[in-house]
């Protein structure tokens, strides 16, 4: 399994004007890898996965780029073919389980609908498989859960159901959009552990979108850092989080409160996506910005075999190391 996203450009046509949401996004998810896309609001991380899965609002348009999923370009194929891939070959875990589950249908019906969208299967067969999936995601009374409705579940249980639906057809790739943001803190860990276990166990790959650096540090193999609709840095988590090379990654990591040191925030604000960015979008907030940063969009340069940074600085020399007490 591999997912290769290249030069993805997505725009939204709104009453206020054109919103440049993704402006050339490049990254790869390799076989068996868990990749985290991290970024703040407006960085384009959710737009990126919605573009890949064909889930954009009617106002959104993919203008350019490709998303090769095992060689098939998800952005170029017919909607019918994309539909066959969604759910069967790519599982999706939504942010808020109560938003994602249909309140009017029993949980069993929702399993059944997903199964029937891809395979011929009768109800008893689907029920057996659903029960099996529910047990695997750690639901104690799977029969009762199947016969009930979403509103009868707690947040953690509902998210387990969503995970079970996402993995029902044994997809090799799972895409998760902030899978624990809506849950209580003590439940988040349980769900993340569960997801990671299921991914590893099934030798699947996962793309996980989050704004939580801790989730990336603890659960991902590689990280893609986004800012203003562009990837600014990509690489193995172990390297990026200990020696960030892009000034934005550095600033993000410095923003995490640590006892005994003053946290360092970033001045300024995220640029307005209503105008097409010229030059480096981060330069107004960057401590190391030069005049040349305003001239052209910095190209993405490979650093060693497995890292890439989009910055005009000589990053290894000019960007200081992250100092942790």
């Amino acid at each position, binding site marked *: 399994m591999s997912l290769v996203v290249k030069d993805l450009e997505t725009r939204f046509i709104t009453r206020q004007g054109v919103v440049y949401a993704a402006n050339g996004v490049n990254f790869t998810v390799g076989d068996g890898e868990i990749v985290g896309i991290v970024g703040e609001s407006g960085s384009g991380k959710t737009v990126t996965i919605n573009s890949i899965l064909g889930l954009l609002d009617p106002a959104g348009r993919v203008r350019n780029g490709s998303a090769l999923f095992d060689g098939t370009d998800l952005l170029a194929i017919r909607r019918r073919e994309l539909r066959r891939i969604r759910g069967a070959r790519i599982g999706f875990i939504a*942010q808020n389980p109560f938003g994602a589950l249909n309140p009017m249908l029993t949980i069993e019906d929702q399993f059944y609908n*997903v199964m029937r969208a891809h395979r011929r299967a009768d109800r008893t067969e689907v029920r057996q498989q659903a029960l099996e999936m529910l047990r695997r995601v750690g639901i104690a009374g799977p029969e009762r859960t199947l016969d009930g409705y979403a509103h009868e579940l707690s947040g953690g249980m509902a998210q387990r159901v969503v995970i079970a639906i996402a993995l029902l057809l044994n997809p090799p790739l799972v895409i998760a959009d902030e899978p624990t943001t809506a849950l209580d803190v003590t439940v988040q860990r349980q769900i993340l552990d569960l997801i990671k276990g299921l991914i590893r166990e099934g030798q699947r790959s996962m793309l996980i979108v989050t704004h939580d650096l801790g989730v990336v540090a603890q659960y991902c193999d590689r990280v893609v850092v986004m800012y203003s609709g562009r990837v600014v840095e990509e690489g193995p988590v172990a390297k990026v989080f200990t020696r960030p090379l892009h000034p934005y990654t550095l600033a993000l990591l410095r923003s995490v409160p640590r006892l005994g040191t003053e946290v360092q925030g970033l001045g300024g604000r995220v640029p307005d996506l209503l105008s097409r960015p010229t030059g480096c979008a981060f330069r107004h907030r960057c401590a190391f910005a030069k005049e040349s940063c305003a001239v052209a969009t910095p190209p993405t340069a490979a650093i060693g075999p497995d890292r890439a940074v989009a910055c005009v600085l000589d990053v290894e020399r000019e960007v200081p190391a992250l100092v942790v007490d």
Partner: protein
Amino acid sequence: MLRRLIIIPISLFFVVAFSYALVEIMPGDPALAIAGNTANEREVAIIRAELGLDRPFDERFVRFFTDIAQGDLGRSFFDGQIVSHEITRYFPASVEIMVLSLLFAGLIGLSLGALAGYFRQRAPDSVARIVITALQAVPEFLIALLLIFFIFYLWRWAPAPIGRLSLTDTYPPVVTNFLFIDLILAGDWNGLRSTAHRSVLPVATLAIGTAAYFAKVARATIGAAMSSKQVQFARACGLSEFKVLQYALLQARGPIITYTAILVAALVGGASIIETMFSWRGLGQWGLQAILNKDVPAIQGFVIATGSFTMIVYLALDLVVAALDPRIRHDRG
């Protein structure tokens, strides 16, 4: 659930009190106003006694309520008919036109609205919006006139708007007072065809006007549902677009059913004028005539009948919504 049932008697009280208030708001001597200028002293006195105007207010009020509680709505001033009998006689025709137009309005309106909601922010949506906005702005009697002009006068597709059967047809023996049903019971297939043909224009009139409102609410609710997380998740699971639209409809049906109740109330009003224009001889036409005749007992009967009718429709649809939603269904138990 219990709360909903408690509201019925309260609402009915409001309806009856309101119909009573209608006489009270008549300026000067209501008896004189009703009898008209040509009436003599004795006629006025009879009306006054009939209205109970010679008795004190509180006595009249209580009397009014007890009479109604016993199903006694009095007799018409105009033709002396027993009002409650007249209502049961004319009501079925109104139900027929309303059910038929509601059916067609729902069919057309919901399809148009669903189309617009599904393709929100795209060309079909824009076209649907224009159609909805335009249709909403045409008063029903004007729709009727335009339909008569084009379909009857210019194209001769429909018969003249002069009743439910032509002059050469004979009315079937009365069994249920529903003309369609009575014709079937009598086995009069020619009559059935004739009345169906004559129903086209009035039903179309009411259906077109009402369809715009159905379309409006369907467009809004389905449009919102289409951009919901539920629909997004359904799509992400590879469900077909047909199934996805079904999911959106599941979400939208509650508000649409609730809104239907409001449309029924509006339809009763619209039907009065349309029935009159097409000589439909239903409750609406009868009630409108009663109003124009200042036939107080008939007006009161009409207001109470239509008010209670819409109230019951409200309640029934409310129960349907509750029964369809598992969240409400389970809270009750």
